């Protein structure tokens, strides 16, 4: 920061308050926009893990595939300084839709060999997928512009307002998308389909004995979850405007999401959103207080944050396995209606 500017800045306390207020609003809007995207990923993981017991350790791979798919479809053709495929300048909405398709397709490819086997095989298979996708993105010439990443990804509805107000538009878009995913998932998980998923999670043999094709149901949940993760990746790409392989690391894209679901409480959608808010606030908030912390902590704030993520997973497993919000044993509205009906008859 310029020295002179800093002096003036200090001399007018009123504007400091004003500036911090604007700063806080800016931060708050940015934070909620980001957390909404993370909450969508957490909801998708909750569908896979919380409802179906599918053990996906490669969340960031689906997110990344979605981000790159949508970016490549909506970007203009590469300039002479870039080298990537496609660049079709398609509308952003088509990009989002294709991102969801790509995420679902990746889930199908990983799920086919692993979902019919021991449950931990999928975890083992997914833990390396992100690394491989990153290394393909990093090394293949003329594919996705390698380590320099894709820049200038078009924004959605940006002719709507001026640049400084666009953040509000973004926030509204993300909240609308989050609500759509939330209520959509709420609907399907309360429906018979979602109840079969929970039956499979709790006792696969019984579900099989009840005539359910469990592998097929698990595949459906895995693919739907993967598609939602891909969509979230696309939302992310169009929000930040530029993506590169290193940004999609396992910690931020997979383990933090897992912590959100574990903290919020797996097996219920409200828990996933609340977990995303709580863990997201911790994750994005800690760098802000970095300067106020004693040096020994301040310089290590990013590692401490990582340590806390691991610790939260272990502590919640040990002491609060149901998370902040417990799963409801009964989700169908019809059963309640029926019960009331019978009670009235009695």
């Amino acid at each position: 920061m310029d020295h002179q500017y800093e002096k003036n800045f200090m001399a007018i306390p009123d504007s400091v308050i004003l500036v911090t207020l604007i700063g806080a609003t800016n931060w708050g809007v940015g934070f909620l926009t980001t957390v909404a995207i993370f909450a969508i990923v957490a909801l998708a993981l909750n569908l896979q893990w919380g409802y179906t017991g599918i053990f996906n350790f490669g969340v960031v791979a689906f997110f990344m595939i979605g981000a790159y798919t949508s970016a490549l479809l909506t970007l203009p053709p590469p300039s002479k300084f870039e080298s990537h495929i496609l660049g079709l300048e398609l509308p952003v909405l088509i990009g989002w839709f294709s991102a969801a398709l790509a995420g679902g397709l990746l889930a199908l490819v990983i799920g086919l060999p692993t979902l019919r086997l021991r449950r931990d095989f999928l975890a083992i298979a997914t833990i390396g997928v992100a690394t491989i996708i990153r290394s393909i993105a990093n090394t293949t010439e003329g594919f996705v512009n390698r380590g320099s990443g894709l820049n200038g990804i078009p924004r959605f509805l940006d002719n709507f307002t001026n640049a400084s107000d666009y953040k509000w538009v973004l926030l509204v878009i993300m909240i609308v998308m989050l609500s759509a995913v939330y209520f959509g998932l709420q609907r399907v998980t309360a429906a018979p389909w979602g109840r079969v998923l929970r039956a499979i999670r709790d006792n696969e043999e019984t579900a099989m004995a009840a005539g359910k094709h469990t592998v097929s149901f698990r595949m459906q949940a895995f693919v739907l979850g993967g598609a939602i993760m891909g969509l979230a990746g696309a939302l992310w790409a169009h929000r930040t405007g530029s993506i590169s392989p290193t940004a999609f690391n396992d910690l931020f894209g997979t383990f933090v999401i897992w912590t959100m679901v574990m903290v919020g409480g797996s097996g219920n959608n409200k828990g996933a959103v609340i977990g995303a808010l709580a863990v997201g606030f911790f994750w994005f908030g800690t760098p802000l207080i970095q300067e106020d912390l004693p040096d020994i902590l301040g310089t290590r704030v990013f590692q401490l944050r990582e340590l806390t993520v691991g610790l939260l997973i272990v502590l919640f497993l040990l002491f609060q396995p149901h998370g902040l919000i417990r799963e409801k044993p009964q989700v169908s509205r019809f059963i309640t209606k029926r019960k009331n009906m019978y009670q009235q008859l009695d």
Partner: protein
Amino acid sequence: MDILQLLIIGTIVGSIIGLGAMGLTLSYGVMKFANFAHGDFMTLGMFLAYVVISDLGWGTSPIGNFSFGFGLIPAIILAILGVGCFAIITDHFVHRHLRLRGSGIITMAIASLGIGIMLRAVIQMIWGPTAFRFTTGINTALTLPGDLKIKPDQIFICALTLLCTIGLYLLLYRTQLGKAMRATSDNSELASIAGIDTDRIRMATWGISGGLTAIAGIMLAMQSQLRFDTGFTFLLPMFAAVILGGIGNPWGALLGGLIVGITQELSTEWINPGFKPGVPFVLLIVMLLFRPRGIFGSSI
């Protein structure tokens, strides 16, 4: 590069993967869950050895053609003890409680992932994000007939793997403890009914698994370098080796490690070396498609 030369490098890398995978498969067989902290156990071993060799500076003058001195011996011992104890302690504080509560293998695997994240964070906190090397000296390669090159350190790596394999064989098949471990791996309830103290067996297994991993970590650090995430990125090849050989089967894991290592190196003859990390994944998927119980069948 020459195919034979790639074969040599593959064997060396494969030995390291195999040794780490032997540790992983032992704990998988006895504990029944996939330990996702295994790679980070490996990193811990590397850095413990690094403290003895570089920070304490014990016995650094090289022996013969090797790049390391007698300091490697206390370094290996400290790493084995350190990683073994760490594994036992985490089991005591985390996995034991989950086991008593009757948690499934998936819950335990997630807990191990949490432990791995924590360990990785602590290692990064202490040693930072930079990469280190054990020794700064050059390890001149020997030239074999046919213009093949191998470094003395790499011969040492292969010899140490062989030694550890023989040691593990003697332990599993010639001692009471080994017999009890195999029994627990086959069927822990039956073993417990037969009067085997399965808690003690679990402790011993963690110790041995941790020890093998520590040695593998030191060998990996000798072959390349050490960084806070070196072990974590090595997790997939080790898991691929475990599944290739059949879960719970240490000889299968060693063979699986050699297959993964050699395939990975040979692949660079035809494909971009950047795709090397994908090779163990492809092997894993092919194995899961056609023979999910591994080459020799798995104990669980």
